[in-house]
C-alpha cells in the first residue's frame, strides 16, 4: 500500500527544488491545495518539466522505483494530474500502487 504522505513528501521536496529556480512572486507553496500547472497553476511548460523530472527523482530516492510520469505534453489535454498538489499526489499514489503490483 502506497503511503500518500510519503508521496506528498516527495512532491514537497520537488517544490523546494523548483522554488530555487522560480522568481520570488511565482514560488510554489508547500500545501495540498497549491495549483501547479493548468488553468490556475503558475508553472509554465519548462517549470512543469522541471517539476515532473524532479518529482521522478524524488520518487526514485524515496520509493526506489524508476518512474516516468509524463511522456507527452499532449497527454495533459485529456487529463491533467499536475493541476494541484492534491491531484498529483492522488495520481502518483495510484501510479505507484499499480507499478508495485506489476
Amino acid at each position: 500500500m502506497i503511503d500518500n504522505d510519503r508521496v506528498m513528501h516527495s512532491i514537497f521536496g520537488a517544490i523546494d527544488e523548483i522554488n530555487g529556480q522560480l522568481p520570488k512572486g511565482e514560488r510554489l507553496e508547500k500545501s495540498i491545495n497549491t495549483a501547479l500547472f493548468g488553468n490556475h497553476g503558475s508553472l509554465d511548460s519548462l517549470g512543469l518539466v522541471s517539476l515532473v523530472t524532479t518529482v521522478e527523482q524524488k520518487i526514485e530516492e524515496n520509493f526506489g522505483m524508476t518512474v516516468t510520469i509524463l511522456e507527452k505534453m499532449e497527454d495533459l489535454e485529456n487529463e491533467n494530474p499536475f493541476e494541484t498538489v492534491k491531484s498529483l499526489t492522488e495520481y502518483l499514489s495510484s501510479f505507484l500502487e499499480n507499478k508495485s503490483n506489476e
Partner: protein
Amino acid sequence: MNKQQFRCVLISDFNVDVFSGYLSNDEGFPLVETLVSPFGQVAQLLMQEDLDCWKGDSDCALIWTRPEAVIQSFNDMLAYNIPSLKEILSEVDQFAHLLLNVCGRVPFVFVPTWTIPTFHRGFGMLDMKKDIGIANTLMQMNLQLAEVFTKSSNIYLMDAQKWINTAGKYAFNPRLWYRGKVAFGNEVYKEAVKDLKAALSGVKGYAKKLVILDLDNTLWGGVVGDLGWENIALGGHDPIGEAYVDFQFTLKSLTNRGILLGIVSKNEESVALEAISKHPEMVLTLQDFAGYRINWEDKAKNIVDLVSDLNFGLQSVVFIDDNPRERSRVSEALSEVFVPEWPEDCMLYKSTLLNLRCFDAPSISKEDTERTKMYLSEQQRKDLKKSFSSLDEWLKGLEIKVTFEEICDANLHRAAQLLNKTNQMNLRTRRMSKTELAEWANRDDHKLWTFRVSDKLGDSGLTGIISLEVKNKQGLITDFILSCRVIGRKVEETMLFTAIKYAKSLGLDEIVAEYVPTPKNKPCLEFWKKSGFRFDEKNNIFTWGLKNDFPLPKYIKIIHTEKDDKKKHCV
C-alpha cells in the same frame, strides 16, 4: 541597478533558463541579473556584435556549450567516426577565436569547459588513448580552449567537470533533455552558480587576502595552555596529529598564492609562541604569519586591530576558528569578515579549506601568471620524465635532506609513537613507553638518534630511529626503525652511516645487529641482506667491521642538530 548587482549575458546551445533561475535567485554576494539569449544560436551571437544582448552595460557573459553541438568533428567522433585530432583541434581553435570576439564586448567572459554525459562510456578502456579516445580528445579540446584564451586576459575557462562530479548521479538526466532541452541536472547548475559568483567576486577584487586563524584545536589539537606544547596533538602517527599537520601544510600553501596568514587567539602569548617555535611538527613558523594578536581580549576587537595594522579591509578577511561561539561573535560583530562554517572533525579541516571559493582571484597580470605556470608545469613534466630513468637520478631530483638528533623532550613523544607503531622496517620490534624509552636512551652506554626526512616535495617529519648499545668494543644496534613513508629513499643507509660513524669515533671494532623476525618485518630483513653487512643466516646476525667506512648515499644531505639542553631535560 544596484552597484553590487551584476548583469550577465547567458549564451548557450541548450536551454539555460533553469540555470538562469538559480543564478538570479541566489542571494549570496554578488547579486546577478541575467539576460538569457535564445538557445541554439551560439555562432550568430558570437559573430554579430550589434545584437541586443551586447547592447547596454552587461558586466559579463557566460557561454556554455556542449562540444558535440559546436564542434562538428567531435560530434562525428561520438558516433565513432574518428576524425583526426588535428581536424578537431583546428575546429576548436576556430570556435575559441569566436569566443575571443566577446572579450571586447563585455568586461569578463566565462566559458565552462566541455563535458560529455557520464553515461557515455566512449571507447571504454581505449577512451583515454591518444588519437582514439573520446575522453582524451575532449581533454585536448579543453586544453586547446585554455591555450587560445591566453590571448585575452578577461576570458576564463571554468572547470565544469567539477560541477558534474559534485552533482553525481543526477548530473545528467536524459528526460530533462528530451522534455525541455535542459542539458544538466539541477545540482550542476547550483555548483556553477557558486563558482560563477566566486569568479565575479574575484574579478571585481573581492577575493579574500588574509586568513586569520585561531590556535587551540584549529592549528593543533588540544589547549596548549593546559597541555604544554609537548603534548598538543600535532604530527606523529595518528590520524588527528596528521590531520593538523596537513591542515598547516594547506594553509602554508595559500601563502604561495599570495594569501597572508594571521593569528587571533585567546592564549598566553608566550605559551602559544613557544609552541609555534619549539614543536618539531609545526609546519607553520612564526615567519609565515603576517601578524598576530594572542591575548585574552575579544577576538572581534583583535581582528579589527590586526587588520588595520596590516592595512587591509575587513572584507578581505577570512576567520577560521573551531569554536562556534567565537565564530558567531565575529560574524555578528564584523559582518564584512567571512567566517566559514567549520567542521568539528579536524580530519575535515584541510578539505574544508580547499573547498572555500573565497580565494578565487585573478592577479593583476593574470595572463603573465598563467604563462609562467604553464611553463613551470611543462618543466616539471620534463623533469619527472627524466627522473624515472634511474633510482639515483630520482633521488638526486628529490633533494633529500636527513636531519638527525639525539632523543630529547621535543622529539620523545614522536619517537615513542614511531617505536610502538612501526612494523615493517623494524629490526627488533621493541615496544616501550615514553618514559622507558627516555630512560633507556639516557644511559651512558646507550645512544638513540631520531631522523627527520624532507625533500623538495615536502617534509615527512620524524620518520626514523636508530639506537646503539655499546658493550666492550662492540656496538649493538638495538633499534632500527623507519616509517614506511620514506622507505627506499636511502634513508636506511643514511641511518647506518650515522651509527657506524659514531661507533668508529668511539674506537669500536664492529657493529652488530640482530634481526628478530615478526610476521610483518620481512621488508627489514630484505634491506639488511642488501646492506653490505656480513650475514649470519643461522642466527639472524648482521655484522660490520669498523675498519671499513659505511658510505653515505649519494644525493643525501645530512644535517646533525645538536641541542645539548634537550638531552639534559630528557625525562
